[in-house]
Every structure is written in C-alpha cells, then in structure tokens.
C-alpha cells in the first residue's frame, strides 16, 4: 500500500499527529480513538452478554433463581443443574447423535465438494456457470418446503424415518453449497504451476499428490470442514421434523425438550445450552481467522 507524504496533507477531522504503521493504516491518538475503543468494548459486551447470563443461570441455586430482581452477579455456585442434565435420559444420546451426524455429513460434503470445486476452479468446461449457479441457488431454497415431501418419503416408500440417514441426506443440502463455494475460491487461489512442475520433474502421480498437493490444500479443506460441521450441528428444522426420539434426534432438538408445556426447567435449560455451546465457542476462538476467511470468501472476489 502506498505510503504517501503526510506532512503536506490537510485533514480536517483531527488536529493531532498522524502516524502510519507498516501496513499503511493510520493510528490517530485523540478522543476519536478513545470513543472507538469504548464502542468496540460495548459491541463485545453485547455479543457475550447472553452467554454470560446463560452461564450464571446454570450455576445459580434454585433459591437464587427465583429471586426477584434477578441477580447480576451470582451469590451461589451450584452444579446440580449439570448433574440433572447429564443424567437425563435424552440429553447425552442427542449430543452423540449430533456429533455423528455432523461428522459423517461433513466427510461426505468434503468428498463431493473437493471433486466439484476442483473441476469448477481449475477446468474451464462448458456449462460451468450453470453448475455453479445451481449449486448457489440451492442455498436460496426454503428448507421448510423440503420437509413435507421428505417426511412423506421417509415414512413411506423409503422408510428411514428417525434414523441418522434421514438427517444426513437433507443436511448435505445445507452444507454442500457453502463447502463448494468456499473450496472453489480456495482452489482458485492455489498456484497452478506447482502441480505441473512437480509432474514435469518426473515425480509419480501419487508422490505429487501426497507431498505437494495435500499440504497445500490441507488448510482450506480443514476450514471447509469446520464451517460444514458448524452448519450441520446448528440444524434444527430437519432434526425436529424427521426424527421422533433420542434415537436419532440431534442436540438442537434435545435442548428444547427442557421446555415442557407447564414447567420450564430454566436452570437445566441453561446448563444444557452451555454444554452445547462451549465446544463451539472453543472452535471459534481457536480458528476465527480461518472461519472468517471462509465466510467472506467469494463474497468480495465474486
């Protein structure tokens, strides 16, 4: 980025010194910066506040839960909600279901996705834009409209209702567009000559694949895997409609079973929510850069 002469620039908004950092962006030390920090802090607080509230709700004693007004800083620390959640008949099975369904669907989505993305990114074939548009168009489907026919199908001629397969199939529709979109953008950015020069050097096909292509593509595939896993884990609609009990229900449905008609076990609900979300929070914190690049890929480059 260009580093221009700054002494002669007349800028109106602040009368303090400007310094340009290496990356070419400006640091202005003034009330503007202070205000910016306050605003950013506010955004972070709002983003994390519900998580905080859920956590303290999960560890408050029963007595304190009923207190009015609700306490902002808990005075009790009680893990009985977690005990109740883990010993419930349905919660752990639904957690296991979610893990298996998300993992299997992700593996399948990567398999199909890598093949398709490679073709779209590297080869200029006839009908390529048609393929790409139809893949993206799937993202615009109202999934609620798929639910009726799938229900009829899975309880009728193709009887897989209330099994993992009943969820893996529609969940693929959830992740494939995202996976292909991201992987296509990723493959496009890979240097094309690397594969060719390795081949010219006389390395065998398998050697090329293993030593060169795999390490190059690993970060992208890994990022795609994370995005896909999260997308499937977060599904609620298909899990609700195509399963009936904890044999195949995902945890998103399992967690709503803490709201019965009459008595809502808020403490347990909170504990269950924490259990479900903590792994996601860790994933996000560890891989935020990869996730962000995955989400924004293609949106700007087109």
């Amino acid at each position, binding site marked *: 980025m260009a580093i221009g002469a700054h002494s002669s620039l007349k800028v109106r908004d602040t009368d303090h010194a400007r310094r340009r950092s290496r990356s070419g962006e400006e640091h202005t030390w003034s009330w503007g910066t202070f205000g910016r920090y306050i605003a950013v802090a506010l955004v972070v607080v709002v983003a994390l506040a*519900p998580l905080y509230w859920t956590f303290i709700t999960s560890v408050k004693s029963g007595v304190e839960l009923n207190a009015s007004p609700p306490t902002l800083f808990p005075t009790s620390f009680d893990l009985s909600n977690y005990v109740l959640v883990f010993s419930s008949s349905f919660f752990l099975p639904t957690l296991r279901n979610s893990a298996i369904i998300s993992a299997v669907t992700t593996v399948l989505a990567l398999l199909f996705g890598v093949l398709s993305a490679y073709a779209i990114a590297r080869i200029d074939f006839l009908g390529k834009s048609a*393929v790409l548009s139809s893949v993206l168009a799937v993202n615009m489907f109202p999934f609620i409209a*798929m639910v009726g026919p799938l229900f009829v199908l899975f309880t009728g001629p193709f009887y897989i209702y209330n099994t993992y397969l009943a969820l893996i199939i529609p969940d693929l529709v959830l992740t494939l567009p995202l996976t292909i979109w991201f992987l296509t953008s990723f493959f496009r950015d890979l240097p094309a000559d690397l594969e060719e020069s390795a081949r010219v050097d006389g390395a065998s096909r398998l050697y090329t694949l293993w030593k060169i292509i795999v390490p190059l593509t690993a970060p992208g595939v890994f990022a795609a895997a994370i995005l896909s896993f999260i997308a499937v884990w977060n599904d609620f609609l298909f899990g609700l409609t195509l399963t009936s009990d904890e044999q195949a229900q995902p945890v998103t449905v399992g967690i709503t079973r803490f709201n019965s008609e009459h008595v809502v076990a808020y403490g347990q609900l909170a504990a269950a*929510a924490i259990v479900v979300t903590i792994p996601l*929070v860790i994933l996000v914190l560890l891989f935020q850069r990869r996730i*962000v690049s995955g989400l924004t890929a293609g949106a700007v480059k087109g």
Partner: protein
Amino acid sequence: MTAQVAESLPQEVTKPSLRERIRMHGGYLPYLLVLPTMLLILVIAIYPMLDSLRISLLNNPLLSQPSFVGLRNYTRVLSDPVFITAIGTTIFFMLISVVLETMLGLGIALLINKTFPGRGLVRAAILVPWAFPTVVSAQMWLLMYNDQTGIITYILQSMHLLSAGDTLIGSRIGVIIASIITDTWKTTPFMALLILAGLQVIPTELYEAASVDGTSRWQRFIRITLPMLKGPLLIALLFRSLDAIRVFDLFYVFGQRSVPSIASYANFKMFAGTAEDFAPGVAATVIVFLFGIVISLVFLFLMRESTSRN
C-alpha cells in the same frame, strides 16, 4: 453469432462441433467430477421441491390413495386469518432485521477496520453469537425474556414499559421485537465481517487522492466507500432477506403457536394438526418458496441495474 464470425474472419473458420469443444475444454473429466454433486442436488433438493408442489394439490398424501383437490389447500390457507397475520409478521420481521443488521454491521465494520491491539480477539468475540445454533440462541435469550429468570423482563418492568407479571414475549409485537433482537444479535457479526472484507479491498489510494483534494470524511464515505461496497452489500442483503423470510427457529421458541411466522405456521399445520392439515401445511411452504422467488427477482433486477450503470 456465426454470421458475425464469418464477417470478421472471412477465411476457413468452421464452428467446432460440440464434441470438439468439450475436448478442448478439459474433456469429460470435469463432468465426472461434478456428477455426484449434481445428482445429489437433483435428488435431495430438486425432487422434494417439485414433490411439494404435487403434495400441495392433494387432499392427504399420507393416504394410500390420495385424491387431487386442485387449489383447495391454498384457498384454505390463504383464508386463515392466522396465516395472513403470519405473513405480515414475517415481512415486518424481515424488513426491520435486515435493515438493522446491515446498518449495525456497517458501523461495526468501520469500527474495526483499523488495526488495534486485540483486534483478533474482538473478531473472535463477535463471531461467537454466529456460531450458536439459532434455536440455542433463542433459548439463551428466552432465559432473559421469561418471567422467572428474565433480566430483560425486570429491566423493562422497572422502566414501566411492561406491566408487572407481563413479559416481552407476551404480545404479538413483543414476540416480533424479541425475534428481531435475537436475530440481529446473531447475524450482525456476520454482516460486519462480510462488509469488513469488502472495505479492505478498497484501495487506500482513492482515499488519499480524495483527502488531498480536501474532502471531508463524510464526503469520502459517501462518494468512495458506499459505492465500492455496493456489490458485496447487495449479495449479503439478498441472502439475508431470503434467510429472514424463512425464519423458523426464533418464532418456534418465542411465538410458538400463537405468534407464528409463515414457516413455523406451516410446520405446526403439517405436524401438530390433524391429518387433513398436512397438505395445507405443504401449500403454505410453497407460498414461502414463492416469496423467496419474488425477493430473488427483485434483487437480481437491482443488481443488474447497478452493474449496467457502472
């Protein structure tokens, strides 16, 4: 087009056959590679969509011998006042949440556009709401909206915006507001990051040239930033609007049966009614699909308009 080619190159230019063109463009390999995906999409996405049209014209698809009843399911659904209200609910939700998320997202993107210490942590922190399943987010906000543990309920009651014993999700407008708040909380970070990516592609030379000319910050924003963001913004708006029109999880948790969106209405019709309600429920989902098509067409028109103007 062949005529034009013949005009510009009067010599021996023959249009290659289809087979030759395929061979020039990488052979049959790419088609093999995309075949599994296309098959999957055909079977899992296209087939149910078409089948939903078929089912919506039947009396009850779960019978062994369903009969064709034409548009009766549609008239039944469209004459249901609950459904008409749900349409209004959903459209109102869509408009407000999309506008809010875009404006707030833009604000946040501008805020974190400059590097500062801890920026990575901030990005991670605001990404956290996005990572949660929507239904779990709804449950978490429910813990703040309810009458027992609800901190928000308490605050609103203290400000006399709610009467004692009442909660935000006790009224139709309250449910909509609660859904908007939760959806905005969850999605604004995504919009912010999308817009941020768009901001970072704008070359700084444009800003430098403008500031040499003595323009104010506001003018630079209007004249440079916004037009350059138009492309990514429109795409983001399109996807957000389509998402919003099919909102389900939030209204399922906050509104339940009394304040549905069109998607949750369809769901209750299909699975919580009588067997006779299933097909009308499917008809309702087709209506959701039609809404989606209208929105897509509007945006396609808008995008074509903006590219032709450039």
